């Protein structure tokens, strides 16, 4: 840190993309127009499960204005985000697995002609019985959705035992059990999917796409189109909301690329709102069973958690999701023994994937509701019960995760005080209630999606002789503000104003690889890479300045557009002049930096999900009213405290926290990705898929807790996903406080409240399933690795 503290970090300054967004000048993918551009539409399966015996485009190709039609035979190579589960086809080769699964793609002179052409493509389907539930998938042993997987319709089953779980339960005074269900929901970003491809006569392909992960799209295109990565350029356009839904390589991206190669003309596709419900990759529906052992004072002695994930038609990120449903239970409260079993099945529905909180909101809901029930039964204050057993800083959890800084205690204490918890809990009038819950999330996945030892994020810096600085990074701004993070990190390090830093991101031709905007990784990873790049640049600038100013290099700092002496502040050199002199001395000035997360102690198979540079922590209190006659819930207020390490910019962090609270309230109160018995999405429209608006959003009081994490850039952790997690169980717990019923299902709708009040609401049923023999592991078997990388 500089002598005078930070110059831009920690200050509520506006984002660099703000003016363009406010002025309507931001150019999203669908705003792009190229000369001779064609338009594409995808033909989608109307059947949830069917063999495709043939696709004939003859009639469509006769329609004037149609330039090309491609089918599965044109792009048969399988792909998928996870290297071990490549089970997707851009266009169905011989089978469709959900209503909306793409079968053919058209390129035509207009969207209208392309749409008309879809009606002229003949598909020979052999309709198969659809599998539409977790139970149905497990039972259908002779009826497979995929053939590559070992057990019918089971994508992945995992089982772990950490510590001595039997001993943990034996030691308990009380053992509690419960079942829970978290319904699936979708991301609903304002911007729909859009991609535009060109293929130039030199054999080079360019794809612009609204994607969170241009690097993974780059890899998938190379694989499916059989082009060298060096001949493909992927540019992520400004993303109008992603929330995890734009993290996979998609059919529409591959289709326009292939159509551009065939036609030699640019081809654009923009999916409509209904299609975005079919592309999905949203929150998995998860059934859960949980057993917890406690001492009479509430001390946890052991926990056993089971999850059953309804994955939909393809794997997507599911392999990671199933692990995530069991990974982070251990990082909030001391847990001496823990058993986790999880299974993800295929069903004939749009594939589920990562949505804000990726696989962790569901178990967090179950866990925090069960802890609330335990506190109730033991006569303990749920806040006090948790405070007694907060995980210690710099410790290793029973499943081998290393917790560095932890602001959970402060989060809990602050949110309790600010909400008036002590005076309100079990003391509000009938129909009014208050609920509490806490949670944790990762600041970036510890491992990349494909196995390699390269950096997760790379930054290049170019210093211009006029004093300008450009930062190049593969990261993708999806509205969370990652471009601004880069500008501010560089401005802070080089003593410049953020508006003087140019940011070039998310372009595989121009920028070094960053893995993408997922797993809340970008601030920590690009921030660290940028700081390292600045450090490398500063070395040369300081070498020159030290000679000019006649002070030692280690006495120099960069502030207010100058390189100056800390001890003799009147000795300074303007940044631009310093750059000129350095360029004279060294030639063109550039510097690079990169970041790779530290290793965690866990060394068992499956230990790759859960590790992270740092865990963020959140605690929430929700106050609400519940109408006993109608079952309607009105949220009066949400208080939320979030340990973000350091508020890189308090305004942006608050924005992320409020956005998370808003999204959580949608999930807990109304959002449902649900299907008819025929396998068709019940309500694929923004009118009938009920999601709250700003008018339904209650007052939110955000409390930022800073722990200055040693691994974070300037001490920062994540803020974009974690704050969603505690709000959902806090609402359920507040409903109990208000009307005395426990709702173990998300969403908590008015009819469920009434059924619960009538004692007609049953706890969710979980299937019988023989999980594999658990992998056993205890801490101490792993190797401790120093945290700071």
């Amino acid at each position: 840190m500089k002598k005078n503290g930070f110059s831009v970090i920690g200050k509520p300054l506006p984002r660099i993309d703000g003016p363009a967004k406010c002025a309507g000048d931001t150019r999203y993918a669908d705003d792009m127009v190229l000369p001779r551009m064609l338009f594409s539409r995808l033909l989608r399966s109307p059947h949830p499960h069917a063999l495709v015996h043939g696709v004939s485009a003859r009639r469509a190709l006769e329609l004037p204005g149609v330039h090309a039609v491609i089918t599965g035979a044109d792009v048969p190579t399988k792909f998928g985000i996870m290297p071990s589960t490549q089970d997707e086809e851009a266009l169905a080769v011989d089978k469709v697995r959900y209503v909306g699964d793409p079968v053919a793609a058209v390129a035509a002179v207009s969207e209208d002609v392309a749409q008309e052409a879809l009606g002229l493509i003949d598909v020979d389907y052999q309709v198969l019985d659809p599998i539409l539930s977790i139970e149905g998938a497990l039972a259908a042993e002779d009826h497979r959705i995929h053939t590559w997987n070992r057990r019918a319709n089971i994508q992945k089953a995992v089982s772990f035992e950490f510590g001595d779980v039997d001993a943990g339960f034996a030691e308990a005074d009380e053992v509690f059990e419960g079942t829970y269900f978290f319904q699936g929901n979708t991301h609903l970003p304002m911007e729909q999917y859009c991609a535009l491809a060109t293929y130039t006569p030199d054999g080079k392909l360019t794809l612009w796409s609204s994607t969170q992960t241009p690097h993974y799209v780059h890899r998938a295109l190379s694989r499916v189109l059989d082009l060298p990565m060096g001949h493909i350029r992927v540019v992520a356009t400004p993303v109008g909301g992603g929330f995890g839904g734009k993290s996979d390589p998609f059919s529409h991206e591959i289709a326009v690329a292939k159509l551009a190669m065939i036609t030699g003309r640019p081809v654009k596709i923009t999916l409509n709102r209904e299609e975005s419900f079919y592309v999905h990759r949203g929150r998995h529906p998860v059934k859960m069973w949980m057993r917890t052992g406690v001492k009479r004072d509430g001390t946890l002695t052991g926990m056993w958690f089971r999850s059953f994930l309804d994955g939909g038609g393809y794997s997507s990120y599911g392999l990671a999701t199933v692990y995530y449903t069991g990974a982070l239970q251990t990082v909030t409260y001391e847990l001496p023994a823990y058993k986790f079993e999880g299974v993800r099945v295929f069903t004939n529905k749009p594939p589920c994937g990562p949505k804000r909180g990726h696989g962790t909101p569901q178990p967090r809901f179950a866990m925090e509701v069960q802890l609330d029930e335990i506190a109730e039964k033991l006569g303990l204050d749920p806040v006090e019960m948790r405070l007694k057993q907060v995980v210690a800083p710099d410790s290793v959890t029973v499943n081998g995760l290393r917790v560095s800084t932890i602001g959970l205690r402060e989060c809990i204490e602050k949110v309790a005080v600010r909400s008036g918890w002590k005076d309100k809990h079990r003391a509000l009038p009938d129909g009014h209630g208050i609920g509490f819950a806490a949670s944790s999330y990762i600041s970036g996945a510890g491992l990349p999606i494909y196995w390699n030892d390269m950096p997760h994020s790379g930054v290049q810096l170019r210093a211009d002789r006029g004093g300008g600085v450009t930062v190049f990074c593969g990261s993708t701004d999806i509205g969370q503000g990652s471009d601004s993070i880069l500008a501010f990190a560089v401005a802070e390090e080089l003593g410049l104003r953020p508006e003087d830093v140019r940011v070039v991101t998310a372009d595989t031709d121009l920028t070094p690889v960053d893995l993408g905007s997922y797993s809340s990784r970008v601030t920590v990873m690009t921030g660290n890479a940028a700081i390292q790049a600045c450090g490398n640049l500063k070395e040369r600038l300081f070498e020159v300045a030290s000679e000019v100013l006649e002070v030692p290099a280690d006495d120099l700092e960069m502030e207010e557009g100058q390189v100056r002496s800390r001890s003799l502040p009147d000795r300074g050199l303007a940044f631009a002049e310093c750059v000129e002199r350095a360029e004279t001395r060294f030639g063109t000035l550039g510097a690079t930096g990169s970041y790779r997360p530290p290793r965690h102690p866990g060394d068992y198979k499956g230990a790759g999900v859960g590790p992270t540079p740092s865990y963020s922590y959140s605690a929430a209190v929700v106050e609400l009213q519940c109408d006993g006659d109608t079952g309607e819930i009105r949220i009066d207020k949400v208080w939320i405290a979030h340990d973000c390490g350091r508020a890189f910019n308090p305004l942006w962090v608050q924005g992320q926290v409020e956005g998370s609270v808003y999204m959580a309230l949608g999930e807990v109160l109304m959002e449902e990705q649900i299907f008819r018995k025929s396998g068709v999405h019940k309500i694929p429209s923004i009118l009938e898929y009920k999601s709250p608006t700003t008018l339904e959003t209650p007052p939110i009081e955000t409390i930022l807790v800073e722990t200055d994490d040693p691994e974070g850039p300037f001490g920062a952790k994540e803020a974009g996903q974690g704050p969603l997690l505690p709000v959902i169980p806090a609402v359920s717990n507040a409903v109990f406080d208000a009307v005395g019923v426990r709702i173990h299902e998300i969403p908590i709708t008015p009819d469920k409240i009434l059924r619960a009040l009538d004692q007609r609401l049953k706890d969710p049923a979980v299937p019988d399933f023989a999980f594999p023999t658990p992998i056993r592991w205890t801490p101490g078997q792993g190797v401790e690795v120093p945290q700071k990388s």
Partner: protein
Amino acid sequence: MLRLPDFTYIRPRTLAEAAGVLQELGTEAMAVAGGTDVYPKMKRGQFTPRYLVSLSHVEEHRGIRREDGRGLWIGAGETLTAVAGHANVRREFPALAAAAGLVSTLQLRNAGTIGGNLFVDTRCNYYDQSFFWRQAVGFCLKKDGDICLVAPKSRVCLAICSSDTAPVLSSLNAEAVLVGARGSRQVPLETLYRDDGIDYLAKRPDELLQGVWLPEASFGWRNVYLKLRRRGSFDFPVLGVAAALRVGATGTCEAARIVLTAVASAPKVVEDAPRVLCGKPVDGAAIEEAAELAMRVSHPLDNADMDYWYRKRMTRVFVTRALRQLADAGAATAGPDAALV
């Protein structure tokens, strides 16, 4: 986004001219006022007109005015925002102001008209879907198919009346003025609705709504509208309760009307409500009995948001609350602008 199909846009200057065009072009033509329902439905292939007859250049269906001896005239072409905000409506018929103000969102209320809301197409979760969706599920009676997907044994379409203003105006005995190719007529608004999700309006296709009269006799009635929906910000009703009472100086209920929306293909008049409410004070027992009767005639189906048993059960709760508000309104010293909702 979904593309709007091509169509020919016709702009008549009078309702008679518009009615003539509609008669001449027959089933290939549709009238459009605010367009907030017509255009989305054209994009989804639910409406497939070749000609749209726009009413936005017509003047004679505009205006909201009080005429002594006749009542309050509300032109069908007035926007929902105009109706909801009109001082006379707010003072005398707060239920109508509330109902108009609860339709959809502000942006759509600025475009959508009261006439459009009164005659709005019936809705159903099997029908209000894209062409692709309806093809995947199988087409239904109301459009392109031959069975009702809500109740396969039903011979009639069960799409539901989704107007907020129709139950209110029916409860207040409003009269509708229609202009057709063969002249104009005035009928009780209530008689224009049929309990058939397809053929839901008892009028000739060329007849256009010029406006409605709230008759002199409806002034002085206490009136209220309560709406059930998922979100307070927008959403069609999944239940609406319009209640209107004429209460004498002694507190005796002299006349009563309760009309429900979103529980059938037409606004549902609770026929027995006057029997249990009139001739006595509006007290707890009478309210309970009326609410029970309303629930019995409320038949929501599984074709809208929220469970049908829940919507049926809410009929009793909402009618109870509506009547309680009206009963309490007599006790309170309500100012001239006090809206009940």
